């Protein structure tokens, strides 16, 4: 019984990790298209990624877009989460549902709606428009995760801080924020990944000058099949691990101890 259980676990784990292993392995292969197991060893696909101006440019655009959207989403999401986690707000469940609605709609519906709206007000094909759209899509993730932390927060701690002579600013930055930070950070990391990864909405709203990395990759694979895409994926996987693991171990494991 125990052996069978382990086997099933092993298969699931393999199914989850195998594609990632394949992608990383093929990024170093010398053949002109991804094959597994890879033949030879080369870094030329990484060099190709870095030396192709469109790809490098799109990485810059994506990074700026995701950072800006994530910052906005984190501020808006944290505020909303705190307000919603406290009692006594009229229409609390309605506001909560509304805030989460962007993830309930199919992305393509949302994308079309935003396209129509943004064309009217001149935001289509602008960086500002993209930031607005991304913020809309990723804020629910921050709200959800920050709310979990905020709901656990004991409001009498804020009263205690004020009673000890702390202004509301000091109370917020020294007591409230540090204690709900794990949820906010988890939300922010999640939001950043969602934004960096976003394709459908971006594809419809981005002009020719604002090709994000997912759009470039999407276009690239339609015309070429060399392992440059594997190289890009490998870079992203390493980057996510470098950001994600410290945040999750530092801030999220603390809550379980």
């Amino acid at each position, binding site marked *: 019984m125990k052996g069978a259980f382990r086997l099933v676990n092993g298969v699931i784990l393999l199914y989850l990790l195998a594609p990632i292993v394949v992608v990383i392995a093929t990024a170093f292969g010398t053949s002109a298209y991804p094959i597994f197991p890879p033949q030879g060893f080369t870094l030329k696909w990484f060099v190709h990624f870095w030396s192709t101006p469109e790809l490098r440019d799109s990485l810059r655009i994506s990074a700026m877009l995701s950072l800006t959207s994530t910052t906005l989403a984190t501020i808006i999401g944290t505020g909303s989460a705190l307000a919603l986690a406290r009692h006594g707000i009229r229409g609390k469940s309605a506001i909560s549902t509304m805030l989460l609605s962007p993830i309930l709609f199919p992305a393509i519906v949302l994308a079309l709606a935003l396209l129509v709206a943004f064309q009217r007000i001149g935001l289509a094909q602008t960086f500002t428009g993209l930031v607005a759209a991304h913020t809309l899509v990723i804020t629910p993730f921050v709200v959800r995760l920050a709310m979990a932390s905020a709901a656990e927060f004991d409001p009498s701690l804020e009263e205690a801080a004020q009673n000890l002579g702390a202004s509301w600013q000091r109370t917020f930055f020294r007591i409230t924020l540090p*204690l709900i930070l794990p949820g906010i950070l988890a939300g922010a990391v999640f939001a950043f990944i969602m934004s960096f990864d976003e394709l459908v909405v971006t594809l419809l709203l981005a002009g020719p000058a604002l090709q994000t990395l997912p759009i470039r990759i999407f276009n690239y694979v339609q015309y070429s099949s060399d392992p440059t895409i594997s190289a890009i994926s490998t870079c992203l996987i390493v980057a996510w691990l470098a950001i994600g693991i410290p945040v999750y171990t530092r801030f999220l494991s603390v809550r379980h101890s």
Partner: protein
Amino acid sequence: MAYLALRNLSKVYGTATVVKDFDLSVEAGEFVALLGPSGCGKTTTLRMIAGFVAPTKGEIWIKDTNVTPLPPHRRNVGLVFQNYALFPHMTVRANIEFGLKSHHVEAAPMNKSVGSVLELVGLTPYAERYPRELSGGQQQRVALARVLALKPDLLLFDEPLSNLDAKLRVQMREEIRRLQRELGVTALFVTHDQEEAMTMADRIVLLERGRIAQVGTAEEIYDHPRTRFVAGFIGTANFFEGSIVSVAGRKVFRCKSGLEIEAHAESSDFGAGTIAVRPEKIEFVSPDATHAQPGVIRQATQLGATMEYAVDLKLGDRVIVQEQKRPRVALRRSGEQVGLTWQAADTIFLRN
């Protein structure tokens, strides 16, 4: 003028009046308990003084300053919370420093203050611990040290002992009282526990549904309750309903059951009312003694050092009697025929 003065304080939530026309003067150094059943408005009153609840009406004066319009962080009032509300991400030392830093106290005097309050509550070896690493009693002491470090004008306690076990509760009562006396700080202590109020407070303010029922020392309230609620809330009492009548020039209280009690009442006290007799003021005598009320013991309950007996009188009233256990005296049994007697001076007449 009084050190702390609450004037006409009222709080209304929608249609519910939680606190009504609360008037109280507290002298410097006094320890006053706000006592009452849950929902009587005692915590709301405390939260109004701390500044977390805005009064609907009335004023709060501390040391000749009207603090009513001040936000919580501008009132120099220390509050010890029921759940202690220690900051979980800070050590004991950082918890105590928080208030001092909020008041921009410099490093050297701050360290001195922290050191002295830690010593005061006996937690010097625990300064670098986190709250979750401390016992309930130690957390309680940190909460106390944290507010004492600020030398508050007024100490407020919101049922601070209700989360401790019985033994520790008694110990903390004495400790809180000792610290309060030593520092000479004025304190207001909210509790629903009459024993806590009676053992700790100089004066008790008994609240009933948002209003003050009676103010006085434990002795005054116990011996001279003004209403049936007060007599029943502080200690226990036997209540007899009836009225005071004049029988052959003597004042006698005649109960509905026909029981007649010699009453101790002012000459003006005539008419319908209630007589209260404390269970420990009633004596057992033989059933056929003159002036004794005959009855039978229906239930005998162990209270430790005392016994409590429920006695059904021949006339129908049920009377609770408490008797101190004595050496070489056998306990009474259920079913025993007894006579009850008490002094007129030990009866309390409560006008309806």
